[in-house]
């Protein structure tokens, strides 16, 4: 490969020359890493490949998803495949959709000093600190709205000086919003009713009765959404 089509990146401190245009994840695999943790959907949805990096001549610590970020020359890269964060035990049906619920289960929310470091760390470009503030104000619906695209990568949680465990709080807020505040969807109830009444039992029985080859044929011939 021509030298001009490559860039040098530093993976855990060691230099590798990799093709330009690769994602960080592909560059790691090109360099010989076999990813077992820190990899998932490869499409920017699962949040497993949280990664931090620095660029030459820039003091900022950048945070992104390895599967969504293209390598740049001189990038110093480290993966953070997992962020320790304890989920509070609760039973959703025993909770009320109000701010006190979030604060009672995650009291460290009140340590926020509005430094905004969480927002700077978010690869999804969410207004993370605004969501903390809405949680403190008790607006569950706003928290759910602001964090709808959270992929639980944990980068905000790793960077927070107040040690807030954001993604567990967001999950709780979205659950409370979904269970108690969001409008009910009629078609979901209809479909659950159909399932309970056995509307799909025939189809399942037909699949269960198939041999392996027949099942493989049916799989190949299945309808696939465009």
């Amino acid at each position, binding site marked *: 490969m021509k030298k001009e089509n490559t860039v040098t990146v530093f993976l855990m401190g060691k230099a590798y020359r990799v093709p330009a245009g690769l994602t960080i994840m592909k560059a790691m695999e090109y360099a010989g890493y076999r990813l077992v943790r820190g990899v998932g959907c490869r499409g920017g949805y699962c949040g497993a490949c949280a990664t931090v990096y620095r660029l030459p001549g820039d003091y900022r610590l950048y945070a992104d998803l390895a599967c969504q970020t293209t390598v740049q020359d001189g990038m110093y890269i480290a993966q953070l495949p997992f962020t320790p964060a304890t989920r509070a035990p609760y039973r959703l049906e025993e909770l009320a959709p109000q701010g006190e619920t979030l604060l009672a289960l995650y009291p460290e929310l009140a340590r926020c000093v509005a430094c905004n470091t969480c927002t700077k760390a978010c690869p999804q470009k969410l207004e993370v600190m605004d969501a903390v503030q809405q949680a403190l*104000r008790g607006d569950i619906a706003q928290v759910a709205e602001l964090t709808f695209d959270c992929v639980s990568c944990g980068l905000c949680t790793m960077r927070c000086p107040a040690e807030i465990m954001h993604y567990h709080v967001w999950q709780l807020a979205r659950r409370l919003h979904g269970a108690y505040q969001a409008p009910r969807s009629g078609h979901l109830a209809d479909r659950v009713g159909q399932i309970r009444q056995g509307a799909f039992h025939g189809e399942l029985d037909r699949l269960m009765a198939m041999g392996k080859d027949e099942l493989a044929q049916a799989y190949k011939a299945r309808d696939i959404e465009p």
Partner: protein
Amino acid sequence: MKRVAYFPGCALKDQARGYEAGAKKALEVLGYELVELSRWNCCGTVYALAQDDLVRHLGPVRNLVRTQEMGLDQLVTLCAMCYGTLRRSQRFVEEDEERLSRIRAFMDEEQEYAGGVKVLHLLNLLRDEIGFEPLESKVTRPLEGLKVGAYYGCMLLRPRDVGVDDPDRPEVMERVLGALGATPVLFPERTECCGAYLTVARPDVVQARSERILASAKSSGADVVVTSCPLCQFNLENRRPAWAAGLPVVYLGEVLAWALVQGATVPEEIQARIGKPAEVKA
């Protein structure tokens, strides 16, 4: 209609909703539109005294940046606590170039704060921007016969250099009430502390404070006590002794709305004293 940036603070969106509703409508009558910051965070609640504890000023200053982003240079608050915190923080970071430059360096994701956003409490706006005479001229329902005890508490007046008035002999709230046609009642405990956050750890202390404050207002003849602090309002309403039940503690914004806003909802016990809308001058 003059637009001013408005910082609500958490209590105004929860327990003190009536204060916000009343103040907004009353200020509309007076020609002011309170434009809420589209994004805001907690005022900081308790002012950081340590000289090097700059991180606690990030929250307050960020709200000043939001004001600057709107192209406005005045930020109005209704809550006494938010006022005290934002004003003190603004002065603290702006009086020292090094502090300001460190704050700017940390908040490199924001528009650079140029300094100079003026933090105002509703009372500053009424006295210094609108004026008592224009205020009086907009009254549609004078609160005649209503004896109102203005309760300042601490944050509005102290420390002296950011207080809205003389901490020992304040008069701004009485002047406002007078302009609305009410009879202001002075009472000895009007500038004493309600006990503030001790309401959580030591409700007994706050109960004793509330009892003294309300007894003082009542014996001076007040029909109603008015405050601009959601924490004072909570403490006086919720930690009060049973005998003080007939002395409502209301927000300044509500009192303004009774006098200025056509069709404002007036509680029955207040209406009984100031007369029905039909008896009111046009």
